[in-house]
């Protein structure tokens, strides 16, 4: 057995040698090879010593100075032949030692404010629309969405951020982020809107050191569901949030105080699983009302889970799919005919999102194409506690958008949106009924003057189906957005 193994090893190593080196024809060639190998051996022994010295020096234990290490091969070379004499300084020193003298910092430069990145976004616009009332108000009246139809025109408790005709200071954002310690990173984004309110968009503490591809985040989190939800408004491709987000979560999307756990699976393609537990403070999806009649659902009331899958399509193409699920307790209190009406129930949301990007490798993005779409279906099951009647709504919405970089730094795009393709409502007064859908179409052109400033022009046509009639309007937005502070990293 042993003998066989030795034979095998011998045979293999010979086979490998021949395989690796090719077949030297003559004894002369072999001699040459040997000589070369010997020379190499000498050189790299010295090299190893020298590099080891450098490594040791870096580690702080100077066992051998770089100088003594490098002297070895030089002295060796000196014994031979007629080399033209080089200047003494050159003879005595080593290239990398010299370079060290020349470059003050033999280490990668460190950013001055490496510990804290500060950034600010200023997003202002000139807005004009020809609707008879504020568009965000009209959206609240879309049949089947927002208010229960019998409560109708009352109860505008919501705070709207709709742009008014004229100049708007749409969004001022202040962001701070840093690596906290070896275990956490953290960031927060404060948004100032309409000059009157300050909102904490995000305040997240995230682990950086968990094993197995896990990341745990806590704080106020922009939910990982969908595609646009996780993006700050300054990264959107259009001036406003898609209709379907506005209808199901409001114009800020789904942001919750809670925790998020994500796992990047060890697959050869991108596969991310995520789940979140949130308080449930979203006015449109998981409101909680303090009322004597209403049951006290203990926090957390909102649960989400999502999967993102992205096959590797090579250097020019990239694609990602997402599957999303959200469920939460939901309560509404509405005043009607001087009576408080209390609703209690549960919302379920199912969604898919998809994005495709093509990189043309042009100057400043020229020729790039982005296609993107998201679809959400909401199943709302509410009970009017005053009389025990059931109200059930099944509704959906989607958007599709395409963007094309038409010239260096110039981009054009279009978005088509529909809300209430399925718009089935059931209530005790009218039984089952179905409302027509609403839609919006928008065209956009933007010019990124630099990495930090952008001008955007957007025109949109709205057509909303409300209780009274179909509301139609044109909307024009001329937006100027700039960013200050640290250079942003571009997410996919």
């Amino acid at each position, binding site marked *: 057995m042993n003998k066989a193994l030795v034979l095998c090893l011998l045979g293999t190593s010979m086979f490998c040698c021949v395989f690796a080196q090719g077949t030297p024809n003559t004894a002369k060639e072999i001699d040459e090879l040997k000589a070369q190998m010997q020379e190499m051996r000498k050189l790299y022994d010295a090299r190893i010593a020298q590099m080891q010295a450098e490594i040791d020096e870096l580690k702080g234990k100077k066992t051998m100075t770089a100088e003594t290490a490098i002297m070895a091969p030089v002295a060796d070379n000196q014994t031979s032949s007629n*080399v033209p004499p080089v200047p003494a300084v050159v003879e005595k020193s080593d290239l990398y030692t010299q370079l060290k003298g020349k470059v003050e910092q033999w280490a990668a430069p460190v950013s001055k404010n490496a510990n804290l990145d500060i950034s600010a976004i200023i997003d202002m616009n000139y807005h004009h629309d020809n609707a008879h009332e504020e568009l965000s108000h009209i959206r609240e009246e879309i049949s089947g969405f927002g208010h229960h139809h019998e409560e109708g025109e009352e109860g505008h408790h919501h705070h709207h951020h709709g742009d008014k005709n004229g100049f708007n200071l749409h969004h001022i954002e202040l962001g701070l982020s840093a690596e906290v310690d070896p275990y956490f990173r953290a960031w927060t984004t404060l948004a100032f809107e309409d000059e009157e309110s300050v909102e904490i968009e995000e305040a997240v503490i995230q682990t950086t050191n968990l094993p197995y591809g896990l990341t745990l985040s806590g704080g106020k989190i922009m939910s990982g569901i969908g595609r646009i939800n996780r993006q700050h408004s300054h990264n959107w491709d259009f001036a406003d949030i898609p209709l379907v987000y506005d209808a199901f979560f409001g114009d800020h999307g789904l942001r919750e105080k809670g925790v998020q756990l994500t796992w*990047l699976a060890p697959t050869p393609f991108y596969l991310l699983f995520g789940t979140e537990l949130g308080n449930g403070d979203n006015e449109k999806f998981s409101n909680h009302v303090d009322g004597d009649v209403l049951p006290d659902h203990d926090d957390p009331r909102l649960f989400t889970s999502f999967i993102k899958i992205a096959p590797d399509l090579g250097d020019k193409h990239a694609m990602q799919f997402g599957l999303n699920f959200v469920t939460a307790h939901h309560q509404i209190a509405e005043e009607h005919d001087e009576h408080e009406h209390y609703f209690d129930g549960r919302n379920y949301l199912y969604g898919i999102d998809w994005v495709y990007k093509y990189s043309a490798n042009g100057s400043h993005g020229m020729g790039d194409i982005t296609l993107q779409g998201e679809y959400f279906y909401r199943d709302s099951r509410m009970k009017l506690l005053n009389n025990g009647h059931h109200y059930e709504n099944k509704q959906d919405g989607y958007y599709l958008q395409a963007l094309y970089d038409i010239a260096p730094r110039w981009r054009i795009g279009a978005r088509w949106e529909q809300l209430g393709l399925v718009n089935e409502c059931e209530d005790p007064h009218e039984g089952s009924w179905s409302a027509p859908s609403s839609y919006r179409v928008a065209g956009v052109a933007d010019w990124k003057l*630099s990495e930090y400033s952008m001008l955007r022009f957007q025109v949109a046509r709205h057509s909303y189906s409300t209780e009274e009639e179909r509301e139609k309007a044109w909307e024009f937005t001329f937006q100027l957005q700039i960013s200050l502070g640290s250079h942003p990293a*571009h997410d996919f």
Partner: protein
Amino acid sequence: MQSHHGAPYSPCLTFYIMYKGKNMKNTILFFILLAVSCIHAAPIRILTTTTDLKSITQMLTGDLAEVTSLTTGKEDPHDLTSRPSFVVKARQADMWIRIGLELEIGWESAVLRDSRNRRIQVGAPGHLDVSQGIEPLDVPTSNTGREAGDVHPHGNPHYWLDPLNGRIIAHNIATRLMTLFPEHKETFATNLILFEKKLDERMFGKNLVAKVESGEKLWLMTIRGELDKYLQNNNLKADDDCWLGRLAPFRNAPVATYNRSWLYFLHRFNFQLAGELEPKPGIPPSAKHLLSLVDTFKQKGVRVILQEPFYSLKAAQLLSSRMGVKIVVCPNCVNGGDDCEDYFKMMDNLVVKLGDALAK
């Protein structure tokens, strides 16, 4: 740090045993060896941000590592976005090598963060910034803000186009590889010597390197500004077909470029930087700006505009029609076009293209 035993011979061994394995004992041995060779064959996984780093790293590791570059060499490395496939590659990597000087600032942090790979985060031993020891050019002297365009506060990051910096990059990578994978120390050291030898010979010529018996000494004299004197005194000269020799006749020739990305290259080969077509780094030139350049360039005697393939040709063509200047479109990254499959070929291609354009 997990240990790797890249064993290129293991598969051969396995096949040999398979061939010999005619009885039961040998069959069992075969399966054991197959299992062992599978474990052993796992190569070191290295992820580089650019193709130039990939090329140099590959020459140092040989078959011991699987080296992947995130950029393809055909795009502007400034204008990249993170992608899911980048994240997947980064998650598996044992080592991350970057150019630094903020070249990758627009996307590196997003990829590293999403990869959740602790081995390659900034500051970890598996994260290497090869700009260590490079003498940066274009470091802003005053507190320049962004009104000056896309200025890199630590200096111009396109330093790999100076062959000396290529040598430093290789040295930095080999040193780090030796620390991380000491079991392959000898291979890395051998390959580094081979790389340095080849680079020195491409730069100064085989004959000159052989006469002086050390490329390193030639470099030392180069950085001390003593090379010319030394060559003159000893009646030596760089070979005609090496980089230095090929470009020597055009010493001090004024060359215009689209972006300041060619600075290190032009500096090393003693060209005169006549100016850029971009009014400010990262800002595309307007027709008005270009017309204002015509007089300046004429005055300086500019005959060549050098630019990367991914920038629009319109600006250079406008100048060419006004003053008959030659346009040299040449990749400055490995795989950025034809004839630049590795670092040496990329530099060869650049030297030949520029040399030819200036010779006409």
